[in-house]
């Protein structure tokens, strides 16, 4: 049995190595034109309007029909700071006027699929809809642009963003993969038109949709990046069940699923198909965490909350949980590896991240005893009813806490009732939580950890003015070193000193795909790099 397992692991590792080498060598290969890329998507988009939705289920099937002002470099999507122009000219502009003005020159050769020219007026109308939508129009990420004072087009080829204060968060926010450029004339007539219709300027032209089944598009011959796209068309097939999506790749009914599979699915595919499968992996810009309810006893006591985090063996969990769940990297509240994020050495100074788990748990027991928390009681641990990674990590956490003597009853609820409890009734002692962001932008991502009256994503119900003050200071700094220092302060306050809420592990993105799919490179976000204009089929 052991040797079979070892063999499977070796096969998987060999295939991953092959995948990585294939991906690397893919850059040197000459792309071939033609073919239809069929891919599976786990969910169906609720509407077609990128500005009002937040799900990858919209980005994957619909993103290739649209252009962005700037985007993550499709040739280097693993970089966290490499943004390139899409409909703008040249490089992403540097700020002027004390870093408060960004001037973009718009390309003259960009056309909507209706044949009309895309101008700076369209870009301005798009960003006005995102940043300051009229009443009755939803914009999901408007708070990401709190630094923007105005956006204007002095002429048809120039867009000027004026900021209230210099902010390093602006460019990553601008590169959100949801910021599709819409046509001003259409928006002027009907702000809701894009909810049910598609008219972009992206590499593919939308052709057909069968609700619940698929969406299909064809190559845009007038695409502004000359020579692209390589594919003749794309077909997104909606398939809810994970096992079916895995088998669809195995049976070649689909070539890829861009979101990501758990390790077991990767191993199965590699075992069944060998060299016909390439695996790309990356740290995922999603973190799984747990949040104590600060309004409930004994979790209103910082000692009890610290005991909870001290009980969790993240370094060990990374090793073992990563074999069965889509989690792996140990990190704090911001994406591990980002220039603003703490290093592993810095994290190891924080309670709960100490390398010596015995010492941590001894301290946890001491704190629990000192706090006088009732350890005979069973507390309620709310878990989102989704296997990967919540239910798996949830079960593991209950065991971790049991080891320091605090017992939890795990209550698993489907997403609807789960969010109802988390956001409305708030009847939980501790809950699983997650943050999953569109682009890596720590300055925006940490807003989740601000006080409850400032963050709609914070479910612990705490008010922490120290964190708020540090954040307000950090967001207005231009100096990256100073920002990093304050980010470390926020991390320490949130995870250790005030023990507000706790990250556990960062997700691990695993995308096994048919080896004939070339050109696509994995990024830390399953929302980013989905234009598919540089993807080709080696068939």
């Amino acid at each position, binding site marked *: 049995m052991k040797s079979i397992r070892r063999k499977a692991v070796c096969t998987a590792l060999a295939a991953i190595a092959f995948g990585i080498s294939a991906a690397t060598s893919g850059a040197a290969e000459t792309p071939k034109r033609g073919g239809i890329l069929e891919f599976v998507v786990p969910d169906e988009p609720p509407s077609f309007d990128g500005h009002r939705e937040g799900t990858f289920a919209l980005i994957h099937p619909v993103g290739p029909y649209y252009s962005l002002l700037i985007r993550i470099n499709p040739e280097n999507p693993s970089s966290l700071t490499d943004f390139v122009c899409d409909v703008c000219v040249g490089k992403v502009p540097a700020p002027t006027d004390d870093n408060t003005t960004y001037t973009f020159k718009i390309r003259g050769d960009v056309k909507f699929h209706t044949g009309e020219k895309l101008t700076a007026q369209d870009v301005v109308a798009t960003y006005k809809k995102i940043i300051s939508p009229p009443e009755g129009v939803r914009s*999901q990420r408007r708070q990401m642009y709190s630094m923007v004072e105005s956006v204007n087009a002095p002429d048809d080829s120039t867009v000027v963003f004026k900021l209230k204060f210099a902010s390093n968060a602006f460019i990553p926010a601008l590169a959100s993969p949801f910021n599709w450029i819409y046509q001003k004339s259409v928006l002027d007539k009907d702000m809701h038109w894009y909810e049910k219709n598609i008219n972009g300027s992206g590499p593919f032209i939308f052709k057909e949709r069968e609700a619940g089944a698929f969406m299909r598009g064809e190559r845009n011959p007038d695409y502004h990046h000359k020579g692209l796209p390589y594919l003749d068309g794309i077909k997104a097939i909606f398939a809810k069940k994970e096992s079916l999506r895995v088998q669809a790749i195995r049976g070649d009914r689909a070539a890829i699923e861009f979101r990501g599979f758990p390790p077991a699915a990767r191993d199965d595919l590699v075992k069944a198909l060998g060299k016909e499968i390439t695996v790309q992996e990356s740290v995922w810009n999603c973190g799984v965490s747990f949040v104590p309810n600060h309004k409930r006893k004994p979790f209103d006591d910082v000692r009890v909350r610290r005991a909870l985090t001290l009980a969790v063996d993240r370094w060990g969990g990374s090793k073992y949980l990563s074999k069965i769940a889509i989690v792996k990297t140990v990190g704090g509240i911001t994406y591990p590896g980002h220039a603003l994020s703490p290093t592993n050495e810095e994290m190891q100074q924080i309670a709960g991240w100490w390398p010596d788990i015995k010492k941590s748990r001894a301290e946890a027991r001491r704190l629990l005893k000192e706090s006088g928390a009732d350890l005979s009681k069973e507390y309620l641990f709310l878990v989102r009813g989704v296997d990967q990674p919540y239910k798996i990590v949830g079960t593991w956490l209950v065991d971790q806490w049991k080891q320091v003597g605090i017992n939890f009853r795990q209550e698993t609820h489907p997403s609807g009732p789960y969010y109802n409890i988390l956001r409305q009734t708030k009847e939980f002692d501790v809950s699983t939580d997650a943050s999953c962001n569109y682009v890596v932008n720590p300055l925006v991502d940490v807003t989740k950890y601000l006080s409850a009256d400032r963050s709609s994503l914070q479910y612990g119900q705490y008010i922490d003015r120290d964190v708020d003050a540090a954040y307000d200071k950090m967001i207005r700094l231009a100096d990256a070193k100073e920002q990093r220092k304050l980010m470390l302060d926020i991390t320490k306050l949130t995870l250790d000193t005030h023990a507000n809420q706790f990250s556990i592990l960062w997700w691990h993105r695993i995308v096994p795909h048919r080896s004939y799919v070339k050109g696509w490179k994995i990024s830390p976000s399953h929302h980013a790099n989905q234009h598919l204009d540089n993807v080709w089929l080696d068939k």
Partner: protein
Amino acid sequence: MRKYIFKRLLLVIPTLFGAAVLVFIMLRLIPGDICEIRMAGDGGMFDQTAIDTCRVEMGTNKPMLTQFVDFVWGLMRFDFGTSMWTGQPVLSEVALRFELTLQVAIMATIIGVIIAIPLGIISAVRQNTWLDYMVRGFSIAGIATPAFWLGLMIIIGLLVSTQHFLGKPWMPPITYIPIWEDPFYNLSMLIWPTVATGYRYSAVVTRMTRSALLEVLREDYVRTARSKGLWEKAIIWRHALKNALLPVVTIIGLEFAFLMGGLVVTEQVFNLNGIGKLFIESVLNNDYTMTQSLVMLVVMIFVMVNFAVDIGYAWLDPRIRYN
């Protein structure tokens, strides 16, 4: 008879109204908010005003009574509204899927009946012989085996066996094409879920056919027919089976209606874009308008199928009169 049909049709109205009240109340009892699932479900950043705007758009901010009146008034005009999740008209969303579900239900019924009736007869006629034991084993296994599990096994079996024998794994198509456009493609997709559901279907009908026929075969008139020296096949086919079919027809009708709305998991396993898949997605998304409409559709199907079964009784047994 006409009076009976008219009465039965009138009864549909309070049945539908009762179902409407029940489904409306029960859906509201499930905690959750479509706007929160939509915005917060992916763990990404969202704006609280966007949630508030969403509630206004969906009408979930209106008083419960207003929502109920809107729903019932819509039903009376056959206006089911728009899906809260996709924003598309409910009727068009359902119509798209209805065709596929209907085809699977018809094919499963055909497979089920073709297998079940002969097996049920053999099992009853050869009671307590090895043939009977085999049929009983086959049908009990069919009832005990969940269709979705069988479906998974079929897919994995196809992948493994085709890879082993043909060198390349093959699985059924995962997008639907109507049978009149490409019969081969259509059947290569739908035959497998049909087999998976038809097996369970046939198992239920086999059991019912066997027990009904056994009961009829013990009747006096069958003994009389035998004592008159009538040919055994004529006794079974002409005299016994027709009478034994009454409960079998009821089961076939109920199973058919169940397939029209109940293939929830099997449709997921084979990625069939049918009513069952739409049902589960609507419930998970807290899409009230879609779920309400689907429940009403299934209720209507059950009412109509039961009605047809009742009419069928009169044809099978001329002694039955609906006065």
